[in-house]
Structures are given as structure tokens and as C-alpha cells.
């Protein structure tokens, strides 16, 4: 769920940029090391970022009738790992702002934190936890992708509630309002993305097995 350009007041936009910066800088350093060791890795990284962008441009059938777009958070975190996703996610969010008018430049920091940091880390941790608990792979992938999506939506609601506290109910009242308004689209979206990611991971696994044979 992208926060649109201009929606956040200047102070909040700046604060979220500062909060996201260490994750992006750490990811960028890792990426620079990878590229220094293997110059050809930049092609793989670019393909991965391009893939994540295209994923976000695809329409996802939603039960509420409206069409939404997958975030690719869960699949990206499982395939490439959360630190790399912080940089790739930032690039993808920048391209989405400039090419699709989704998100923005002043809200990039807030969007990076929710979609390229919080979402991928939650998805990755849930996926690893599910593996440790011995849950079936499909269940782990579904939980990782859908809860990663919900984490993104939860963090965005917190960001909006912090920026616009309710006059009577304060931060909590605002959080309930924002989470309630966006739940209509985001909860079905999270379920749908979880299912799509399971189908995608199963098909990728099948392909790997076939290639192995």
C-alpha cells in the first residue's frame, strides 16, 4: 500500500527517510560488495528488480471487485533475502513513482520502510519459522506472503496514524480508522497474494526438480 506523494507532512516524510536510510545504505553496501566480487551480478540483480516491478504492475483479482496489484514482498524476500530486497525494493518504489505514479519521492522513505524493509523481514522470518516448525512448504509460503503483506499494511496504517492523530481518540483512534478504511482492500489482497505466491513457488519448485532430472 503506497502512501501517495504529498500525503505526509514534511516532518514525517523526513523522519521516515532517516529511519529507512540505514537499511538501504546497509543493503547498498552489500550490493556494492556483490558487484565488486562478480561484475556480472548486476545483471541478475537488475533482472530481479525488473521482475519485482513487473509483478507490482500486474493486476490481482480481488474479491471486493476492485483490482489491486501484488507487492511481491513475500516472493522477493524468500527468493533474494530481506537485505537485498531493501535496495531492490527502493529501486522498484522509485520506478513505480516515476513510471506509474504510485507512491512518491517525499513519501519514498515511508514507503521503503513499510514495503522494502518491514514487509520483507516479516515475510522472511515467518517463512524461516514455518520451516523450523516443520509446517508444509505451501503453508509456510502462504503465511509468509500474506502476513508480509499485512505487515506492510499495518506499518502504513501506523505511519498515517502518527502523521494524523485523531482529535478525540489520539493515535489509537486514528490507527483504528486508517486500518479499518484500508482493510477493505488490503485484507483480501493479502489473502490473494498469499495464494498466488504458493502457486508461483510450487511451479518454480517443479521447474527446478525437472531441471535437476
Amino acid at each position, binding site marked *: 500500500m503506497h*502512501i*501517495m*506523494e*504529498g*500525503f505526509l507532512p514534511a516532518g514525517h*516524510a523526513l523522519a521516515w527517510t532517516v529511519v529507512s536510510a540505514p537499511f538501504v545504505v546497509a543493503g*547498498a553496501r552489500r*550490493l556494492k560488495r556483490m*558487484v565488486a566480487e562478480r*561484475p*556480472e551480478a*548486476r*545483471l*541478475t*540483480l*537488475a*533482472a*530481479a*528488480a*525488473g*521482475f519485482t516491478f*513487473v509483478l507490482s*504492475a*500486474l493486476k490481482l*483479482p480481488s474479491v471486493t471487485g476492485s483490482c489491486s496489484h501484488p507487492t511481491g514482498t513475500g*516472493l522477493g524476500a524468500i*527468493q533474494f533475502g530481506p537485505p537485498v530486497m531493501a535496495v531492490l525494493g527502493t*529501486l*522498484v518504489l*522509485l*520506478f513505480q*513513482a*516515476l*513510471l*506509474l*505514479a*504510485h507512491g*512518491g*519521492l517525499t513519501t519514498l522513505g515511508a514507503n521503503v520502510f513499510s514495503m522494502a524493509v518491514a514487509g520483507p523481514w516479516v515475510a522472511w522470518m515467518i517463512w524461516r519459522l514455518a520451516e523450523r516448525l516443520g509446517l508444509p512448504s505451501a503453508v509456510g509460503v502462504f503465511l509468509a506472503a500474506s502476513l508480509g503483506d499485512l505487515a506492510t499494511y499495518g506499518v502504513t496504517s501506523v505511519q*498515517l496514524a502518527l502523521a*494524523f492523530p*485523531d*482529535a*478525540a*481518540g489520539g493515535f489509537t*483512534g*486514528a490507527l483504528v*480508522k*486508517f486500518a*479499518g*478504511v484500508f482493510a477493505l482492500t488490503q485484507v483480501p489482497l493479502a489473502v*490473494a497474494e498469499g*495464494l*498466488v*505466491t504458493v*502457486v*508461483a513457488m510450487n*511451479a*518454480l519448485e517443479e*521447474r527446478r526438480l525437472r531441471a535437476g532430472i
Partner: protein
Amino acid sequence: MTLFIDRLAQAGRWRRRATADKVVLALGLLLLAISLPPWPGAALVLAVAWGAALFGAGVPPGDWLRLNAAPLGFALTGAAALAVEWSDGGVHLAADHGVRAALVVLRTAAGASCLLLLAATTPTPDLLRGSRRVGLPAEIAEVALLTWRFLFLLLDAAAAIRAAQEARLGWQGWRRSLRSLGLLVAMLLPRAMERARRLEIGLAARGFNGSLPMLSPVRPVSPAFLVAALGGEAMVAGVSLWLS
């Protein structure tokens, strides 16, 4: 395949204008939009950004309206939450009768117009090359430029897979659509990686050393444009602060 905004930027009247000119105008207005009081600051920014896009850059009015409509969906949904208050265990119309919500929508519309002014007049590779000149690490800039090149190839591949699925009734009904989308994603990722691998082999055969130099024509900055942009921004800031 092309993207709508990119097509406008590549074919627009300001295509050959220096990136710095457009960045000073659009980002300067954007900073004013989020830092000045929404009324009258954001309203003035909105008017200047629309004027610059329609009369300066010559963006067709229909295309410009279509671009601006997209971000308003989020703005209006978010504003709906701001127009109500949580009290006595229920939701009521806010005490300010929705004034705060209207001001946020105004600021979002102004901010989005500034972003669109930049995006619809400046192709993304120009912005990345400009960022490189002001300190973006070379490795990140190159990965970003390569990503930009991959986007269109992958969008083409995704469209082809989707057309094939639709021809086989793969997008009839919710369950089948979800399955088709999952299969599309699963087909696209190996294709993206395979394309990267083939490109890597091709480049290695040509002595790839990690850098992909590309033609980048130098476009001189226009002092008159910069003076007009900065003057206009100073006037917007001055009038806004005076009126508020």
C-alpha cells in the same frame, strides 16, 4: 511495450531540455507543496504545476488529467478517515467538518502534480544519470539503468504470457485467475534470470568489465529557464506566506 508516462516523457516538448532545469522546477515546487501551509500554498503550487505541464511542457490535457486521477484514489480514501472522528465508542463527522481532510487532499494533489510534472517531462534514465553526477554510487546507478532496460522486456513477456492464458480461458473466474497469475509469475522469474544470463554471456564475449557506457548527450542548462523557475517558486512562497 511502453509505459504511458515514459511515452509522454520521451516524446514531449521538454525532452531536450536539461534535466537540471526540470528538476529545479518540479522538485522546488514539490518542496514548497509539502512545506507551505496547504491553503493557499499547495493551491498555488497546484496552479503553477498544471500551468507548467499544460502550457510549458505541452502535455496533452486529456493525458494530464488521466495521470492526475490515479493518485487521487488513495488521497480520497485516506481523507475519508480524516473526515471522521472516533469518540464515545462510535465514528462521527470531524469537529472541523472535514477541513483537515480537504487540506490534505489539496496538498496531495499539489505534490502529485509536481511529481508528475517531472515524470512526464524527464525520462527515468536522464534522472538516474543526473543522480550519478550528484553522488549516487556508480554500481547502484548501473543496476538501476539495467533494471530500467529489463522492465520493458519483462512487461512484454508478461503481456505475452497473459494473452496466451486468456486465449485458453485462464482468466475466467476468481480461482482460475489466481492460479493463472501464480503460473505467470512462476514463468516470468526464470525468464528474467535466463535473459540476464544470456546478456551476461553476450557481454562477457565483448570484454565486459563491469561498466556499460552509454551515449548521453550533454544538454546545456538554460539560465533564463532557471531564473524563471526560481523566481516563480520565490513568488509562490512569498504570496503564500503573505496570504496566510
